[in-house]
């Protein structure tokens, strides 16, 4: 293993991704420190989701470096290996397993031996049962534990997905638009939930909703056309000329 090159938990340097000549990411550099919660904002097509794809191994960058925990080169690993390292991802569109119950969704996400052979003879331990109960409590889904996930309300699906993310016990959580389509009350609860999670985990939250980002009250990175144009507190970035230009299209 190579010596640690950075203190950052997630380190991107000069990452470039092109799709048929379109530069989705253009020399993107970003460092997320351990324990941090970072909000990433940007207009449509700024490269927010592509950035997530690169970190989780779905998309291979054309150039640049992506390091996790200072030592693991994520550009050389696939989705499964990256997930095993402790990178969890919540998708923009809630993707839970619709035909499994809430409880089984969490059970499948629970950290443990993922090998096919082991899954055949697997039996649930007391510890695993308790972890599932705790997750149901954190995500306030205890009352619907036996409900088929496909039948959940939109907000509950989002929380279930966050619960599944937590079940994986990841070091880094990538959360893509967690409050899209949520009511104001649900949005407030989600802010609480994310802050709670941030107590012992690092998060990267991608979001459109500026009010939500303001409530999160964390360092903000603004992406535009695949690169970082501003970084700082929400007040700092909203005062930035370039950001105003991009958002208001002046």
């Amino acid at each position: 293993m190579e010596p640690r090159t950075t203190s950052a938990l997630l380190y991107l340097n000069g990452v470039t991704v092109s799709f048929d000549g379109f530069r989705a990411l253009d020399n993107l550099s970003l460092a997320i420190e351990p324990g941090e919660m970072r909000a990433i904002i940007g207009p449509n097509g700024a490269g927010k989701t592509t950035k997530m794809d690169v970190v989780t191994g779905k998309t291979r960058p054309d150039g640049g470096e992506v390091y996790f925990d200072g030592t693991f080169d994520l550009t050389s690993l696939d989705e499964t290996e990256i997930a095993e390292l402790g990178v969890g991802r919540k998708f923009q569109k809630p993707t839970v397993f619709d035909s499994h119950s809430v409880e089984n969704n969490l059970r499948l996400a629970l950290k443990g031996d993922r090998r096919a052979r082991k899954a055949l003879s697997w039996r649930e331990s007391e510890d695993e049962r308790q972890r599932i109960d705790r997750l149901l409590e954190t995500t306030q889904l205890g009352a619907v534990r036996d409900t088929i996930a496909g039948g959940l309300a939109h907000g509950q699906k989002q929380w279930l997905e966050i619960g599944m993310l937590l079940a994986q016990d990841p070091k880094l959580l990538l959360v893509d638009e967690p409050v899209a389509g949520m009511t104001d009350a649900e949005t407030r609860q989600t802010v609480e939930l994310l802050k709670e999670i941030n107590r012992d985990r690092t998060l990267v939250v991608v979001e459109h909703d500026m009010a939500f980002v303001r409530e999160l009250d964390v360092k903000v990175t603004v992406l535009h056309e695949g690169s970082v144009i501003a970084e700082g507190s929400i007040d700092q970035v909203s005062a930035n000329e370039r950001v105003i230009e991009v958002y208001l299209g002046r």
Partner: protein
Amino acid sequence: MTGSPLIRALDRVSIPFLGLLAAIAIVVPVLNLAMSPLSAWYVPTYLVSLFGKYFCYALLALAIDLIWGYCGILSLGHGAFFALGGYAMGMYLMRQIGTRGVYADPILPDFMVFLNWPALPVYWYGFQHFAYAALMVVLVPGLLAFVFGWFAFRSRVTGVYLSIITQALTFALMLGFFRNNFGFGGNNGLTDFKDILGFNVQSDATRAALFAASVVALGIGFYLCRVIVRSKFGKVLIAIRDAEARTRFLGYRVESYKLLVFTVSACMAGIAGALYVPQVGIINPSEFAPANSIEAVIWVAVGGRGTLVGAVIGAILVNYAKTTFTSGALAPYWLFMLGGLFVAVTLLLPRGIVGGAQDPGIAQPRPAE
């Protein structure tokens, strides 16, 4: 989710179904062998063989349901594994003929003598032993499925593309087996069987025994499938079926799960083929025809995919209908009826006969603890 997976599979769905199969395996042979042909209770031998054949089809349907209904792998070439199992059994049966063949060659099957082959090809060695042939029945389809799946699943070939290459696989095998120089009897295939394990394949007792063996094999296959789908492995399969990318991001090696279940399914199909051949008395390359594999998928769709019991019911019902309609005035229209049935089921009963009535493979109610 507590308790041993082997015991967990015995639930309120499995026990009555396995009980029913056990009763059929015992009662039908008894009614055939012990009753006088004049009795109202007598089951004629032709029916025993006919239903023995249906139970083999049911095992093939079960194999398809396991991968299609639970893991979303639509194989349109499962008939290939069925036929390979059938050929392995056919080779054993050919070697049993010995000097009773038309050319009375003690070693070479008739078609090889006819083609002036000087000696038995190496790949026919060992097939005079039942145990070896039985091993090949499982090993050959299993190995082919493993190699095929290894490449297909690692390259992430899914959906309709996978279905197309499974069709190509069975079609390629069909063309191969049609060739005389392939060494499997060309377009005539393997036939004129005399005995199996020393018993005359034509006798009532042997036919009844083969029937019972087919039902027992179906029962074991069903139980094995239940063990698989009720385990955590089965839950991962459903997760792959519903959201493959998500499952991968959770850290599951999707290709290993697919490869394992695909291989198990191919072995089951091989066993089904091996039990089928002595009951119908012939195996030829038409068993590899792509249409056969598609028909088997229709049985599963009709019965209800992702239900296991539905696959069995679908296979038996559709085949019974086929036997009934293809022997009467409606015979020329059977394929239209089959196609119409598939369209009707897809539109009106998308979860099949059983799927409409029961909660299919989807989350089971929590077992009482």
